[in-house]
């Protein structure tokens, strides 16, 4: 099976299943259904996966995550140095993608927390809610309405407008 996500990174709170104290002699339908699922779906699928892994054993190749060096940003480029502009633009685009993924991860955490807690999520998931609010506000203020043709220059101009607005307020 492809490895499940690392449980230490997104820790779930310990489940609070009460101790079972059955007093009726009727068969437990949940147990029956779970056993049915196990024998009809889980076992065949796991067996197939084990066979396939047996065929593939040992010849696994590896893939890596690419590491990019940091290059001077748009503010550190000389005027008219178009090559520097290009490298800064590419770096900004990679950072934009990374920030989008960060927002998605925070969203996923909030969604998982809400699913776990049920109706009382607003109270129990307070940390995740605050984190999500902070991250999405930051993302909106930096990359918010740049649009489909966003570029490093437009983002810089947006930052300039933001700083000007802050100065006017202060």
């Amino acid at each position, binding site marked *: 099976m*492809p490895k499940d996500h690392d449980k230490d990174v997104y820790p779930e709170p310990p489940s609070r299943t009460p101790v079972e104290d059955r007093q009726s002699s009727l068969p437990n339908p949940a147990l029956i259904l779970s056993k049915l699922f196990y024998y009809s779906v889980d076992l065949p699928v796991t067996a197939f996966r084990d066979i*396939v892994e047996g*065929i*593939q054993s040992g*010849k*696994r*190749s*590896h*893939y*890596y*995550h*690419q*590491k990019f060096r940091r290059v001077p940003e748009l503010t550190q480029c000389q005027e*008219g*140095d*178009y*090559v520097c502009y*290009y*490298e800064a633009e*590419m770096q900004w685009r990679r950072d934009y993608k990374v920030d989008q993924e960060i927002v998605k991860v925070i969203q996923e955490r909030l969604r998982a927390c809400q699913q776990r807690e049920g109706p009382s999520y607003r109270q129990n998931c307070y940390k995740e809610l605050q984190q999500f609010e902070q991250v999405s506000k930051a993302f909106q203020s930096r990359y918010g309405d740049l649009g489909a043709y966003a570029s490093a220059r437009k983002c810089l101009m947006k930052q300039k407008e933001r700083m000007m607005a802050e100065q006017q307020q202060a």
Partner: protein
Amino acid sequence: MVGMSFLRTAAAFTARLNPLKRPCQASNLLSRTVARSEQVVVRHGSHGKRMFIIKPTDFYDRRFLHLLKYYIILTGIPMAALVTFVNVFIGESELAEIPEGYEPEHWEYYKHPITRWIARTFYDSPVKDYEKMMALIQIEAEKAEMRQLQLEVRRHMREKGDGPWFQIQTLDKNLIDHSPKSSPDN
């Protein structure tokens, strides 16, 4: 009343003709007669009487669907078999940390073996594309700079006139024949 009887007979007639709506017609209730059943109880040794059912042609529709299925399956099955064999016998790669001092090839950044093969065989490495783009930008920047310089130099030479450009060649002074004007009284 006469119209009613006419309607009744017309309803009974159409009910008798229509094979689908046989039981319990309004005509039965109105006239309180049992409908004359035309279903003769005969047991054939076959599927019943053969009917020539008249309906619009479905030749073109069935031909289209047959050809569609044929052409989709023609390459669909080999592709499906290929992808299945690759997934079962070769399998996807595992994520690993980049070892010290090792520069992975550009196809080693992908997971699925077919993607890796495509990246290895057909595509240039992204580093190469990046460098190609930077080279193009450098060339264009140099061309733009050259053009600006040329305009500047042209302006200067036009103004001052002491440069090699914008000079019109005149005749050599030694070639001029001064003899007609050399003596005053001629």
